[in-house]
């Protein structure tokens, strides 16, 4: 069955199929419609919607709900995401599953409510304190706003780790046809670790504090091994990359424009391909190396090279000299024509 919905509404539809028990959030543009959909639908399902007094409140309500093994989520943008970082660090330290949707707006500071991808480092490198990582998924359509929210719950519970759906103002506000998911998501039983105040979970303890330094280090090593094991769940899209001479790589709404540029370049005889990262952490390192081997790479992003830096970090050394960047900021999108022009320039062909 299909429905014509906004990206932000698709998030909540996905969350319901994922069995979301509770939504805690504070209003902010351009993410508020996720809360509106949550407020409309969750109570009808006998679940919890709560408007928090601030984002610090939201994330700490999630700390509690996740400790009880419940599937909880929040959504925010810009300044609100910054306020949640302290809590995300605690959730990661305490190994708790939770989903936060970041409908990115511009920054730094107040910025404006236009689309940008400037929260990349905050999400992917972990914006809070300590040696932790969040799982980060990057949708590029209304369909993926739904599907990757479900996937975020799945991975969050698989690894007992917070997951961020890194969207942007374009994806949140645009409307597209959504194919509704089939069946409800099954997640692993939580009774081995959650605290429900019953006999079954009586032995469990949720904590991110280890006062003995060796235990804290051991905990940190264990977390790092867990993050490494997440490489099993990378996800990426390679489009016309096999015979390509130049790979355009992007994620999120920016990848939609890059995809059109690839099609147009092909018509002109330029062998271009698209590599789109769907998971940003874990980064699809192997997939990128394979798609980009021996090719020029053009990174397109709506930020100051944050994604480019990760592309450089994950490419084999010999591929790094061939990477260039095209980017816009401040709420501007990259024009498809500009991507084409840059690709032609890199390939030494004239329009």
């Amino acid at each position: 069955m299909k429905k014509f919905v906004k990206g932000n509404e698709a998030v909540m539809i996905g969350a319901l199929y994922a069995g979301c028990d509770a939504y805690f959030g504070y209003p902010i543009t351009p993410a508020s419609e996720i809360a509106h959909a949550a407020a409309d639908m969750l109570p009808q399902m006998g679940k919890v919607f709560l408007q928090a007094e601030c984002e610090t409140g939201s994330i700490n309500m999630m700390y509690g709900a996740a400790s009880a093994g419940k599937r909880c989520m929040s959504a925010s943008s810009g300044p609100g995401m910054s306020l949640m970082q302290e809590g995300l660090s605690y959730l990661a330290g305490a190994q708790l599953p939770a989903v936060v949707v970041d409908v990115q707006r511009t920054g730094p500071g107040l910025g404006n409510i236009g689309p940008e991808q400037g929260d990349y480092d905050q999400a992917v490198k972990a914006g809070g304190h300590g040696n932790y990582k969040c799982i980060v998924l990057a949708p590029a359509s209304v369909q993926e706003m739904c599907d990757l929210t479900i996937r975020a719950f799945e991975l969050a519970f698989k690894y007992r780790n917070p997951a961020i759906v890194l969207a942007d103002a374009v994806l949140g506000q645009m409307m597209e046809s959504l194919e509704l998911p089939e069946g409800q998501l099954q997640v692993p039983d939580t009774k081995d670790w959650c605290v429900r105040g019953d006999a079954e979970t009586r032995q469990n303890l949720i904590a991110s504090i280890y006062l003995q330094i060796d235990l804290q280090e051991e905990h940190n090593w264990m977390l790092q091994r867990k993050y490494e094991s997440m490489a099993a769940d990378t996800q990426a899209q390679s489009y016309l990359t096999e015979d390509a001479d130049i790979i355009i790589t992007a994620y999120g709404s920016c990848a939609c424009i890059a995809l059109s540029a690839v099609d147009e370049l092909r018509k002109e005889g330029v062998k271009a391909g698209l590599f789109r990262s769907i998971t940003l952490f874990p980064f699809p390192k192997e997939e990128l190396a394979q798609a980009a081997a021996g090719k020029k790479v053009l990174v397109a992003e709506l930020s100051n090279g944050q994604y480019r830096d990760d592309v450089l970090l994950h490419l084999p050394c010999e591929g790094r000299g061939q990477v260039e960047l095209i980017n816009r900021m401040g709420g501007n999108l990259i024009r498809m024509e500009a991507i084409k022009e840059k690709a032609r320039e890199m390939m030494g062909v004239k329009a």
Partner: protein
Amino acid sequence: MEFNAKMYDMPQEKAWCPGCGNFQLHSILREVLAELSIPPQELVFVSGIGQAAKLPQYTRGHMFNGLHGRSLPAAMAINAANPSLKVIVASGDGCTYGEGGNHFLAQMQRNPDIVNIVHNNMVYGLTKGQASPTSSKGMRTRVQVDGVTNEPFNPLAVAIAMGATFVARVFPGNKAQTKEVLKQAIQHKGYALVDCFVQCVAMNKVNTFQWYKEHTYELEASHDPTDRQMAFQRALESEQYPTGVFYSVEGRPVFWEECAAYRHNPEPLFRRSVDMEKLQDVLDSKA
């Protein structure tokens, strides 16, 4: 120098809806500033984020438009750095009582010499109509679909309980009283809270201009604003809302006067630079 309300206006178009209560409050505030003959260069308008928080941009004077909920710490610091400036905070109920609730409490304990005007329209306007801390019980919104269940936040009772030194409520629909109260608030030495009932024509269909008009009345002339217990009792009234000065006490030292930095040196903080000799003395004393 001739003072008139116009000189406090900024030329740009105001991004408030036609009929928004912020217009009336803004216009009264400008008249008050003119009548008190405060030159724009001696004024600092401070705000967070929200519809009300746009006021500093529309008013001639110095301006600090900071983070959502964080106007008060900035205002306190501006006052402490340069006590000769008149600091007026203008933000909404969501910004001041919700996101910034903790700062609201902390400033009342510190008693900075600032005026805290809260545009209380009982709804989140900028983010399009979610309930705010002061929304009435039962009010339906797009997120409180079955109606608000929270007890509404009572800023006046909280402020009186916390020992705020000036606590008032106004409804700009009552222009004469609003003017008088704002004047007193600006002239008050110490923290002055003025909760202002303003209508949000776009997002709050319950608390309209008419509703505020019908649900407010002036505190009697016999009300003694130095009687804290009576002030608290009047602040608890909730069927009909009294307006006017509930509580006012003069003579309590303000935050900057209590700062150690001012104990032996009246020079405002913003004029001070690093005294290298003094630094050497401080370090030597630690040896």
